[in-house]
């Protein structure tokens, strides 16, 4: 292996950085990545990844509405114009770099878009109780062999993905009953397999899943993530988009 690394120094640097093991033998996902990308299916009229409607379970009869039409109120129709968070999973699928930091007890996911940060305990703890629902939910992780499984619950009702760029008149929503399950493992030397299950019994008749790929980008490590402070020069404060 060392001889091969001398010949293919660049490739091996990526391998060493992105496929190392933790001291306890678990995969080490620390590194810099692209956002999750679908291998096909429905594409957004944007660079973000969106879910493929062909994979959705049927909508639950009498359930909460999946689509949320615009109502003319800018705060309702485009909350991100007011620096409201993208939430999970939408923010995770936004077209920006991500950096993961892993210890024995935590995986920290930092997304460049809105500096979304998810702190995922890996120490076997249960979900927190008696806390308010949130945009990013309450995640806990555990290992199933070399696959990290992250279960997230306790969401606010919020946009599911960036579908509204495809159809600017409405959002695809998830409910406050959403539970997501992520399965993360190395697929090859520079790619993570990222399987995301949407279990939302108020909207769908069954849970459904989509498989994504996450490309390791060790060449982005030197620059690192760039700052993203939405409030810095936002032009839509106070309910109305403004010019200069």
């Amino acid at each position: 292996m060392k001889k091969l690394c001398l010949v293919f120094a660049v490739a091996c640097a990526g391998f060493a950085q992105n496929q190392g093991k933790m001291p306890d033998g678990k995969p080490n996902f620390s590194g810099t990545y692209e956002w999750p990308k679908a291998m096909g299916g429905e594409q957004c009229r944007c660079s973000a990844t969106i879910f493929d409607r062909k994979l959705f379970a049927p909508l639950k009869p009498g359930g909460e509405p999946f689509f949320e039409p615009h109502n003319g109120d800018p705060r309702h129709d485009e909350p991100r114009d007011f620096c409201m968070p993208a939430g999970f999973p939408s923010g995770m699928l936004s077209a920006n770099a991500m950096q993961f930091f892993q210890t024995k007890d935590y995986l920290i996911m930092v997304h460049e878009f809105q500096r979304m940060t998810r702190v995922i305990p890996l120490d076997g703890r249960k979900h927190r109780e008696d806390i308010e629902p949130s945009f990013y939910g309450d995640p806990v992780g555990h290992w199933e062999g070399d696959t990290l499984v992250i279960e997230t619950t306790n969401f606010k009702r919020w946009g599911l993905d960036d579908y509204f760029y495809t159809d600017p008149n409405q959002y695809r929503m998830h409910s406050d009953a959403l539970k997501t399950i992520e399965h993360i493992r190395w697929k090859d030397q520079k790619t993570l397999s990222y399987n995301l299950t949407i279990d939302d019994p108020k909207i769908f008749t069954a849970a459904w899943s989509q498989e994504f790929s996450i490309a390791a980008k060790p060449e982005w490590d030197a620059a690192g993530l760039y700052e993203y402070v939405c409030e810095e020069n936002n032009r839509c404060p106070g309910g109305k988009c403004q010019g200069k």
Partner: protein
Amino acid sequence: MRRPFTFSLLLATLATLPTLQAHHSFAAEFDTSKPVKMTGVVTKVEWQNPHIWFYVDVKGDDGKVTNWGFSGGAPGQLMRRGIVKKVIQEGMTVTVEGFRSKDGSNNANGARVTFPDGRSVFTAGSEDRAPGDGKGK
């Protein structure tokens, strides 16, 4: 040597639009039926989140100079494409393509910037659009 200013406001509706992305709603702020292409001198650059803004003095056909504001991508998005702040500086002559603001102000998204030597950079946010890319619907 400064090039003569040109100004053109193209009102043709585009049948095809590209797919790009940003934090704001492109559809809410910009009018895809009003593509613009203007040439002028950069007067100010705000290299800030969530979108860069740069301002260009554009001389109209009547000789009147109007200062236009253009919104681009987030600094981080642009830097990851290799577009750093010094690429667009005050005093530069640039041609900017984008779509005019819906509110009728002298603002537009600045999707593509072309310099006098022919170099062109894609400055839009990743959910914004540029005229004539032929992507999307």
